[in-house]
């Protein structure tokens, strides 16, 4: 297996992670809406557990992929979270999404990106980690054949 192929695997896993994350949030919202009637309802517990499990699977996929994908690339892809949530909220819950909200989201994402991309850093994070822990050298053939 070549390096290009193994990169594709991690792009796939990170997108799967984002997908599960978005789905988990949408389900959490669905669960929360079922409790608006008043007191706490026990019947929402199964839905809540499913939502949390799906969300956790997303986090696991994300962490796994983060070890192999450059942080700046991973965070660019994480903008898909916002896209997925906005589309989902619009279609599933009929939420009003105006220009102010979209520009606010764009600003937040830009800010997060700036915070995460530390200036003056010569090596990307995963390279520093690789220096400390040689076993992490990611894109080698034998590590990819899972």
């Amino acid at each position, binding site marked *: 297996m070549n390096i290009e192929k193994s990169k594709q695997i991690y792009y796939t896993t990170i997108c799967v992670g984002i997908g599960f994350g978005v789905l988990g949030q949408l389900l959490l919202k669905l669960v929360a809406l079922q409790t608006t009637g008043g007191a706490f309802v026990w019947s929402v517990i199964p839905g*809540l557990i499913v939502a949390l499990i799906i969300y956790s699977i997303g986090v696991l996929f994300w962490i796994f992929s983060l070890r192999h994908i450059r942080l700046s690339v991973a965070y660019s892809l994480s903008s898909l979270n916002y896209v997925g949530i906005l589309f989902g909220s619009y279609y599933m819950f009929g939420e009003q999404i105006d220009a102010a909200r979209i520009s606010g989201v764009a600003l937040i994402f830009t800010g997060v990106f700036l915070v995460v991309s530390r200036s003056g850093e010569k090596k990307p994070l995963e390279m520093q980690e690789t220096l400390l822990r040689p076993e992490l050298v990611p894109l080698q053939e034998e590590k990819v054949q899972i």
Partner: protein
Amino acid sequence: MNLAQWIQLLAVVGLGTAAQLALKAAIDNGKPAQDAEEAILRRLLRSPLIWVWFLCYVVSTSLWLWALRTIPLSQAFPILGLQFALVPLASSHFLGEKLSWKQWLGIAIIVIGVAFVGRP
């Protein structure tokens, strides 16, 4: 969003930030973390701070669910991004980490964006 809704979301973000800081402090435990993975894990599980992390996480998640009862997801979810402003601020204040100008700029932009999204 009204004041109560703001408070709910700020509590979610604040507890999330506390959880991250507790985890970092538990891992470091006075020493920089350069050991093998198992050593870090063992240190982590022995530290009482891991319970602070766990508690913050549970309360934060419950509050998040509570907030979602009334706040639209398309509004609440982007505001969680505020944690990316709070964690560096708290790390600089409590852990003495240095922030770059890029990070300061990012923090300012996040706050402006949150104000946009949270508009009533």
